[in-house]
């Protein structure tokens, strides 16, 4: 199985760094990249990740990435999860939910 490429980008640096550390430790087979939010679009085009975990999904993320998680946009309790085009809103997203998303088999290739 190919290594899953995950791009983490959060406007709150502590969130991005903590989630990146957790994913690297708990999902050692994944390639985790962390980027400042202002470079998210550029890095999506460059790295072509399979999954983006971010605080605000940009248009490029929504259109070009197979799966993405918008983690606590506006610092609320809700997160938006979009897996291979199927989107849902999740309240109180747990780290285990994120791990399940990372470990889920890919059903579609990135269109980017």
């Amino acid at each position, binding site marked *: 199985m190919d290594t899953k490429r995950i791009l983490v980008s959060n*406007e*709150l*640096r*502590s*969130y991005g*760094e*903590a*989630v990146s*550390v*957790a994913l690297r*430790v*708990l999902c050692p087979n994944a390639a985790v990249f962390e980027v400042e939010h202002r470079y998210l679009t550029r890095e999506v085009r460059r790295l072509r990740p399979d999954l983006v975990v971010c605080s605000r999904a940009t248009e490029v993320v929504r259109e070009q990435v197979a799966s993405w998680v918008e*983690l*606590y946009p506006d*610092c609320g*309790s809700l*997160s938006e999860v979009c897996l291979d085009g199927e989107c849902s809103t999740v309240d*109180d*997203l*747990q*780290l*285990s*939910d*994120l791990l399940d998303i990372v470990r889920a088999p890919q059903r579609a290739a990135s269109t980017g």
Partner: protein
Amino acid sequence: MITEDGVENRTMRILLVEDHASFRQALALVFGREDEFTVVAQAGSIAEAREAIAAESVDAAVVDLALPDGSGADFIREIADGKMNISTLVLSASLDPAQFAEAVEAGASGVLHKSAGLHDIVDAVRRMRAGEVLLSPNQVIEMLRVVSRKRQEEQEARRSIDRLTRREREVLQALAEGLDSKQIAAKLHITFETERTHMVNILNKLGVHSRLQALVFAVRYGVVEIG
């Protein structure tokens, strides 16, 4: 201080109080990787945090301010008032300096914005463990000034509100319902000119310059209800 029973080697027992579970759990993992820390409890609310400190021996708490059942500053005050010997570090996404200041006044040892990096957060807790002061006296004084200023503004606002007559409050409530001057006059069975007089008096008493400002003031201090 080094004691005979080797307290200097004891890990610092940390409580994380944060309602964003995936961040809190990831942060716990980060602290757990450091030899000198043990995350003994995690709480997503003040209620859970109270249970945690009742059940566990805690040396330090990293506390968010915006919690579902209240402000983290209230929990920090409880800890300080209870003389529990727990150091507290605020970690918040708030952009309001007054909220950080209130937390310091309540007893927080330090404050960090969530835009800080993990290194800064871990380092701040490490410094608390070493007994270092996280805030300079000048920072503390400035924060206490902020709290004092805010409290003074709130007292002045309350005094202004107390000066409003019953009729003026009714005018404000009608304004909050989206009515214009003529509609307010009709609703309260007063003349257009009388409504204007009431409004001028309201603006003067509240120290604002427009109907919109009066409405914002009234909503902020609960003088009117919207919806």
